């Protein structure tokens, strides 16, 4: 057992922390609302190889492990960064596993094509609430048992949403290209979804962790009835519970990411666990971080609400934590829908 990051991983974390601090401070996050996309940030991410790194080396990418990407995702979440990085990384990896995806992948690696992925199968020919869909050039979607590459039409409408994400509902039109069909398509999509679960869990851990820091800093500073409000047990104990859950969510998410390569048998189960628990944790942590700001937490001018909204929406586009827990039970105990 070893819970330390390698030196390379530490450098990776620091590099992205500093990229986000520089390119996505909270005032820019705020000004990118409601569309939720910051082109300068996206360009920086592409330039630094954040998408390319996710693609395996034999497909021309950087060959980062899912654990490396999860560490980046934590930083992404800490910054509540307005850029569809996780979806683009997952789409890139997915394309790399599909011979028919080579062309699109080339554009992704070259950095001149933004491709994301719909995280639920299309319904009635429409991929709904596709993360990054409102700003992507194309998306990968599962339509029945076909994986297709769908060019995003001009003028695709951004769906207004709680988390100021660049979401869109995208109809799978005649110009969609088939990438895979049948069992191959389903298997590739299942892997992609698990990767998305883990990386989104990583981002949710980052959201929760940063929200906790913001909340703790506030209650240390704010005084009421002659003392810092962080000295009241009603405040301190709720935050202690959250700190515990944040630590747990981080360990679990890192374990799930690690397992993708090191313990593939447990990886799907751990991905569902991490997604459900990180979503619960991000929701509850951002709740209290905001709540203990009192009226200030309710102000758009304060950062707490940025985290509060995204904690709910980033997870919400896939489904609620209860869905994830049912999936855990199914994967582990082979009941319904496993």
């Amino acid at each position, binding site marked *: 057992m070893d819970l330390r990051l390698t030196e390379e991983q530490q450098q990776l974390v620091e590099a992205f922390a500093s990229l986000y601090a520089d390119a996505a401070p909270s005032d820019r996050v705020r000004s990118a609302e409601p569309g939720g996309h910051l082109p300068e940030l996206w360009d920086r991410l592409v330039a630094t190889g954040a998408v390319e790194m996710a693609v395996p080396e034999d497909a021309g990418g950087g060959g980062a492990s899912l654990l490396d990407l999860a560490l980046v995702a934590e930083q992404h979440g800490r910054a509540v960064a307005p850029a569809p990085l996780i979806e683009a990384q997952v789409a890139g990896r997915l394309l790399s596993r599909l011979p028919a995806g080579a062309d699109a992948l080339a554009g992704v690696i070259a950095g001149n094509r933004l491709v994301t992925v719909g995280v*639920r199968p299309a319904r009635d020919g429409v991929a*709904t*609430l596709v993360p990054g869909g409102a700003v992507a050039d194309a998306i990968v979607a599962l339509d029945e048992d076909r994986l297709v590459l769908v060019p995003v039409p001009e003028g695709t409408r951004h*769906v*207004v*949403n*709680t*988390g100021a*994400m660049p*979401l869109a*509902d995208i109809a799978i039109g005649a110009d969609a290209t088939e990438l895979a069909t049948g069992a191959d398509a389903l298997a590739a999509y299942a892997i992609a979804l698990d990767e998305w679960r883990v990386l989104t869990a990583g981002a949710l851990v980052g959201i929760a962790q940063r929200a906790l820091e913001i909340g703790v800093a506030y209650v240390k500073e704010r*005084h*009421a*009835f002659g003392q810092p409000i962080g000295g*009241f047990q*009603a*405040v301190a104990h709720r935050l202690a519970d959250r700190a515990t859950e944040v630590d747990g969510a981080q360990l679990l998410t890192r374990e799930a990411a690690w397992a993708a390569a090191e313990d593939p048998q447990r990886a799907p189960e751990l991905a569902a666990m991490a997604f459900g628990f990180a979503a619960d944790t991000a*929701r509850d942590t951002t*709740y209290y971080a*905001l*709540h203990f700001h*009192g*009226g200030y*937490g*309710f*102000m*758009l*001018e304060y950062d707490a*609400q940025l985290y*509060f*909204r995204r904690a*709910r*929406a980033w997870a*919400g*586009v*896939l*489904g*609620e*934590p*209860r*869905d994830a827990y049912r999936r855990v039970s199914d994967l582990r105990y082979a009941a319904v829908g496993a």
Partner: protein
Amino acid sequence: MDFRLGDKSEVLRKEAREFLREVLTPEMVEECYRTGVMHNVEFTKAMRDKGWLAPGWPVEYGGQGRDPIEILALSEEMARAGAPTYGIGTTMMIAWVINMVGTEEQKREILPKALAGDIVIALGFTEPENGSDAAAAATRAVQSDEGWTINGSKMFTTNAHIADYVFMLARTDPDAPKHRGLTTFLVPMKQEGVEVQPVFTLSGERTNITFYNDVFVSDQWRIGEVNAGWRVMSVAFEREHSAAFVGEQERLLDHVVAWARETPGEDGLPRIEEAGVRERIGRAATEIEVSQLLQRRTAWMSTVDLPTHMKGSMSKLFSSERLERQAADFVEMLGPDGVRGRGDPTAPANGEIEHALRHSKGTTIYAGTSEIQRNIIAQHELGLPRPK
């Protein structure tokens, strides 16, 4: 025992529903959302025409002499419909204070206008550096020739940008114990030195921060005795038996049930057929019943002259905490569509459920945070040592 509100209340409730159907147009509701302002002149005039600006005031003061239980039926319907009553509420609260402790001149000047729906009075209790602890107000009022010079700032002065007055709690004796050095003033807003900056919030509601820079207020606008501001405050709140959110809870559940009936699940059946959905809806319905009972109890207690202080805290605490939890739970229950926001044409229930998630978060904060309510209940209802 009798759990009926009584005929007068039910008649009033019916009348309120008809009134709201007629007067509260979708455009008006939409305007509230768009501007974030829960005050509408046209709506206020229509309320005035019904006599509903001061339904609980004695008839001799221009009210309808209704009891707190009737008023509950009325306000529950207003909240359930999302009517813009916030400005009416603050204005009439302060008008009542003036009616009770004001000078004849103040009454002559303010009461007819308030009862006519012609003026708006905003509340200036909270400051940037004090929230729950209102008695810690630092805004200074210094006596000068025939009046007072005010310096300071007030936070969350909702409606200040459309208000004629802010009812302000200011420190007039910095050397006295904190509750004994305060005085209340009705500060006219249209004057030099007053600055109103908008503050936008998570729910889309607009509030303000207001700054007072050498603002002169004639002694005519001092409300109550000098340094008796904290007593005046208690007059302001004595008719507020509880700030529960039963109407908001009901509105949310109405939307959720409609959604669950018309939205098919993966099996093609309406989602209200799912065990989990039924459980969540039934739990919310139960919590609403409890919220309503706790609120009605405080109203009823005031009709039989029982003290409502702790019971009002229970009502506010329970209703707001459960509203918040319900909104969060229902947004999750909607599944991915739950993230579609109010304002988007594809949002379920016209985005009302998503909006409730954001709106409800404020209800456990303003009008006394949940932590303050729990302190009150622990100390005064349970007799525990004052919590630290």
